[in-house]
């Protein structure tokens, strides 16, 4: 296998379309004209590089980075996994940014008016960096479900938002990690916007091996980003 200087295409059989009527906010915000193809230039093959220098000492521990006078409420979890490219190569030393609701389903964000309690010991945002094998880990509490105004009795499933850079602007990804067995998944138009064969990639796996005894339940979530296209050696 030899690497080319091109990045693998955005796989539209994996990603949700812009216009997805059940998610009502897409209606006025989805581009209506076809995307224009572009041959990757340096602008697309390069991208912002963030590694360990972008991460503070408590950034990977959401149970401590917002604590004022105690521990946050909720089930303590450890989320770990690998970031790979779509040839299966690890993506090392790349920044992951995460944000989430607290255990009661409330975001600290000022526009979240859901009358569930703010947790004075939980902020809900953090960062970590993958190691040489593409592995990452952060600690948090399991986020709660919360209602939203998309349709009558609409509730978002438990989820954690992820933002990743990978190795180029083309590998940029913002996604959401869900939890196994959540009955709200089959009712959620954001989760369901992803093509059916791709949806399960958004659901983490509970892992007793990743679970830390007497401390935190373990969830494994591997993430696959676009990477350099490979070409077969044989003619």
């Amino acid at each position, binding site marked *: *296998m030899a690497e080319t200087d091109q990045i693998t*295409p*955005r796989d539209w059989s*994996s*990603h*949700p379309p*812009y216009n*997805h009527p059940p998610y009502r*906010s*897409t209606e*006025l*915000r*989805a*581009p*209506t*004209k076809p995307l*224009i*193809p*572009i041959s*990757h*230039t*340096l*602008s*697309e093959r*390069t*991208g*912002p*590089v963030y590694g360990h220098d*972008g991460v*503070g000492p408590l950034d990977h521990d959401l149970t401590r*980075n917002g604590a004022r006078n105690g521990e946050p409420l909720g089930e303590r979890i450890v989320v770990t996994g690998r970031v790979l*490219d*779509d*040839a*299966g190569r690890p993506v090392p030393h790349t*920044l992951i*940014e995460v*944000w989430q609701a607290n255990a009661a389903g409330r*975001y*600290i*964000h000022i*526009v*979240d008016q859901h009358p569930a309690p703010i947790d004075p010991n939980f902020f*809900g*945002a953090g960062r970590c960096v993958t190691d040489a094998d593409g592995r990452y880990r952060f600690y948090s509490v399991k986020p709660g479900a919360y209602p939203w105004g998309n349709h009558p009795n609409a509730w978002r499933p438990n989820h954690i*938002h992820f933002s990743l850079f990978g190795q*180029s*602007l*083309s590998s940029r*990804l*913002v*996604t959401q990690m869900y939890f196994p067995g959540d009955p709200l998944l089959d009712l959620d138009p*954001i989760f369901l*916007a*992803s093509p059916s064969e*791709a949806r399960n990639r*958004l659901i983490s796996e509970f892992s007793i091996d990743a679970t830390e005894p007497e401390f935190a339940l373990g969830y494994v979530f591997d*993430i*696959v*980003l676009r990477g350099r296209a490979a070409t077969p050696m044989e003619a």
Partner: protein
Amino acid sequence: MSQETPFKQTPSQTVGPYFAYGLTPEQYGYSHAAIADGIMVSGGTEGERIRVEGRVLDGAGDPVNDAMIELWQANAHGHYNHPEDAREDNLLDPEFSGFGRFGTGVDAENRFIFSTIKPGAAGDGQAPHIAVVVFMRGTLSHAYTRIYFSDEQDANGSDPVLNSVPQDRRQTLIARRDDTPGGPVYRFDIHMQGERETVFFDV
């Protein structure tokens, strides 16, 4: 390697309405350090100081107040601060990363506002430009566009990417220069829909 790779891309999902405390915390007043903001220059950055500002408009023409815009660009010499730009004469500017990020929820007019420098041409036939990534509630997959500059008519005329865009839509990619007492401002509105719908690329 078999044809059937198990390594399929993880689907994109929207940033939702609550990204600010995670991704643009300092701009929104949260006490969580930000990795980037709208100020992409420092005192020592080389190049012409410019301001890039605009709004994101939805299909009803209303400004979007929960979008996040990211910029990525070359430095004043047309070089990128990234190992993939391995040109031998690589003229890195240690005072310029090339990356900026700004949310539209703070400014009273819901503008994004970047202080940056005008990028140099990369020397590969492309006109000077800035790559733009658009995220918002209601956008399940981020959108890519580009900013070109209204005072680079000749270079724009021979730019291969601009030339790949239908002629009647090229203007949506060109930021209008306005020389103000505070310095040059390039205005660039992003129209998600409508007659002036911005060109988005399948990057």
